């Protein structure tokens, strides 16, 4: 980032212990945390963007003395390359050389689908308006189509990773967040004619290389050659190592399986973009019913991704998959291995329409059922979904998903709670800190954020709408320089999206990176189970 600053470690401003780069922000407090570290809300001080809210994700130095976490590296790597209205925007990266911590600054999004769904379910007791659901879904698909067009699979889509912008220029705009598990699954070769040159063609014969040079080349080539052989073995080792790392993670982490595609649950080795579409289907249903569609109980402490209960929940609603409908099913390891359990029960009837209360002939149901197609190769793609009839009938989707042009009642969603007792180091201040409202530090004091632990923190937070605390990642943030119109930015590379071109087999389980530690035990139960 061109304007990246860093603390050179010699900054000894005794008056203000903040590193230099941090002084461009007013830190408001903590808004989330995960295994990777903490997320803070801050506002920009500089005159150009004064008051603009920024979410700063701080990555902890990994405990095992291994520098910047690979998750952070991967997230930065991807976010530095992508730019789309429906994908969070990384606005800056900061490094604090003193404590070796890394900070990613994102545009701040006030809401996310998890909180919006929860608000409707627990507070307003009313479903989300049709316009809003459709707009959320369209924008989610629009962002996903962009990612898939660029050969990026998210792999961890779920309501809490789908952010929605609060008041401002981009109100109601959806932003896909949290790319810690995302990966590039294929680096395709662009057609050669696209290099913009063409035309000039110079035929060179075999005379370019003189015969006397040949011998030299041959000997040198093999004298200098890097590793040519041994690729597969090394890949495997890397995979095994990573598998172990993930296992370690699972110990104190909640793994989201509710949005996991059936092929993964059945042990498919490769991720394709279709896994994201399954998750979108689950999210679509959840937006309609306010309940997770397939709420399987997770089997913990298994090294393989086999989750019988999750599969059972899916089969109950969608009926059993069959080899006729899904031919490659036969190749999936768990389908073969666990005949008794998986193939034993038979749910024949598809009860999806009754679960989501949709007319079976309507376009909404049609789209949903295409997203929840068992065979990943037949599952609808993001590009196809955007063209679906559902989006062509009233109410049409809009850019501001929260405010319908038809003048429907606007739901006021609560703002994210901010734990103002936690500083950038992640330590809870002993002194009551100054809470902030709408822009700048103002009056009011925390009624005793004492004790030095986070345990009692949330209940004491002074700002209204503080009924929830987000123990997990509030991870990502959006695009300030928004492109006008919703159709912009799609597939800029013009690469057709393809399926079934998996990367060379890095299998990875989806892991919910939620920290159950950190003294968060005082939280209401539903927050603990947040997915």
């Amino acid at each position, binding site marked *: 980032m061109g304007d990246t600053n860093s603390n050179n470690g010699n900054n000894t401003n005794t008056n203000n212990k903040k590193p230099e780069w941090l002084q461009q922000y007013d830190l408001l407090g903590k808004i989330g945390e995960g295994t990777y570290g903490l997320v803070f809300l801050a506002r920009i001080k500089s005159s150009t963007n004064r008051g603009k809210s920024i979410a700063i994700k701080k990555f902890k130095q990994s405990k095992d003395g291994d520098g910047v976490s690979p998750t952070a590296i991967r997230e930065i790597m991807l976010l*530095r390359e992508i730019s789309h209205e429906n994908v969070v925007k990384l606005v800056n990266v900061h490094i604090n050389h003193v404590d070796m911590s890394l900070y990613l600054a994102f545009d701040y999004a006030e809401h996310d689908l998890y909180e919006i769904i929860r608000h409707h379910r627990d507070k307003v007791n009313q479903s989300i308006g049709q316009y809003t659901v459709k707009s959320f879904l369209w924008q989610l698909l629009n962002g996903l189509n962009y990612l898939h067009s660029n050969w990026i699979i998210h792999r961890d889509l779920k309501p809490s990773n789908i952010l929605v912008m609060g008041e401002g220029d981009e109100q109601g705009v959806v932003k896909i967040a949290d790319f810690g598990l995302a990966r590039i699954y294929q680096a395709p070769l662009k057609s050669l004619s696209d290099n913009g040159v063409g035309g000039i063609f110079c035929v060179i*014969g075999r005379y370019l290389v003189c015969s006397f040079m040949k011998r030299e080349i041959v000997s040198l080539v093999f004298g200098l050659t890097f590793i040519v052989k041994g690729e597969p073995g090394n890949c495997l080792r890397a995979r095994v190592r990573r598998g172990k790392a993930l296992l370690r993670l699972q110990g104190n982490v909640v793994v989201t399986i509710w949005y996991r595609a059936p092929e993964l649950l059945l042990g498919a080795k490769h991720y394709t973009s279709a896994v994201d579409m399954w998750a979108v289907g689950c999210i679509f249903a959840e937006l309609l019913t306010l309940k997770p569609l397939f709420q399987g109980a997770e089997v913990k402490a298994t090294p393989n991704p086999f989750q019988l209960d999750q599969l059972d929940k899916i089969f109950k609603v969608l009926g059993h998959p069959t080899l006729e409908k899904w031919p490659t099913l036969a190749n999936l390891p768990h389908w073969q291995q666990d005949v008794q359990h998986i193939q034993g029960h038979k749910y024949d009837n598809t009860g999806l329409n009754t679960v989501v209360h949709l007319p079976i002939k309507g376009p909404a149901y049609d789209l949903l059922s295409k997203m929840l197609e068992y065979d990943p190769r037949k599952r609808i793609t993001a590009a196809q979904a955007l063209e679906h009839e559902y989006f062509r009938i009233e109410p049409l989707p809009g850019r501001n998903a929260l405010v319908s042009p038809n003048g429907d009642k606007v739901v006021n969603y609560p703002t994210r709670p901010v734990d103002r007792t936690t500083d950038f180091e992640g330590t809870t201040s002993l002194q009551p800190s100054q809470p902030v409202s709408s822009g700048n530090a103002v009056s009011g004091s925390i009624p005793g954020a004492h004790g030095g632990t986070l345990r009692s923190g949330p209940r004491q937070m002074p700002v209204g709408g503080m009924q929830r605390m987000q123990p997990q990642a509030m991870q990502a943030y959006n695009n300030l320089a928004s492109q006008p119109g919703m159709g912009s930015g799609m597939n800029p590379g013009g690469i057709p999206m393809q399926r079934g071109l998996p990367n060379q087999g890095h299998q990875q389980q989806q892991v919910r990176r939620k920290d159950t530690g950190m003294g968060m035990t005082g939280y209401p139960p539903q927050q603990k189970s947040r997915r």
Partner: protein
Amino acid sequence: MAANFWTSSHYKQLLDQEDVDVVHPLDKEKGITLEDFKLIKLHMANYIWKLAQNVKVRQRVVATAVTYMRRVYTRKSMTEYDPRLVAPTCLYLASKAEESTVQARLLVFYLKKLYADEKYRYDRYEIKDILEMEMKILEALNYYLVVFHPYRALSQLLQDANLNDISMTQLTWGLLNDTYKMDLILVHAPHLIALACIYIASVLREKDTTAWFEELRVDMNVVKNISMEILDFYENHRMITDDRIIAAFSKLNLKQ
């Protein structure tokens, strides 16, 4: 874009050769010439490869690490960024970026092990130094970490040209590996580097690829120039001796 070269940060960062061939003023002060500069980078590319052999990572990780190292020295001096630390750290960072993380502990172990090879007697750095340098390199790279390598293009092109027999595959792959001993990856699009390798190999193996190249509609002048550069490199490589490398290094006058 992460997977489209033409919209990627890699493409946007491609440099002209003249901009790559600039010795940092701080290094110049110490008498480092352009030749020295190239020599040290070549030597460090070899060092990265040697380390990689020990820690056992994929070729792709090596290629990314070398690319990082070369990118760092388009911006930073060797005086401030000691190549003996930058090289292993680039491998460390690349292993994370390419999803096959190598532990710093293991890397340092092999750094020390390589001490036995007098060419790579660089063992003054510890884990802490690598972790610190990792962050400095992230900054120096401006957090652009995606690198497009010619390997994928190479295998697809070979297939397309119907040249994907073992002999051609090995030869071109070897040539391609050697291109990382030069700065080509900073200057040219990966598919053009791959084509140059195919071109050289097809001449060596006396395969007639003229018609195939014609159909590609690429700028053959560029492919030709890259090929010449590779051949020049091989030609000059014979003259490179350990003494010259040591001499170049001694000018840097780095702490022992």
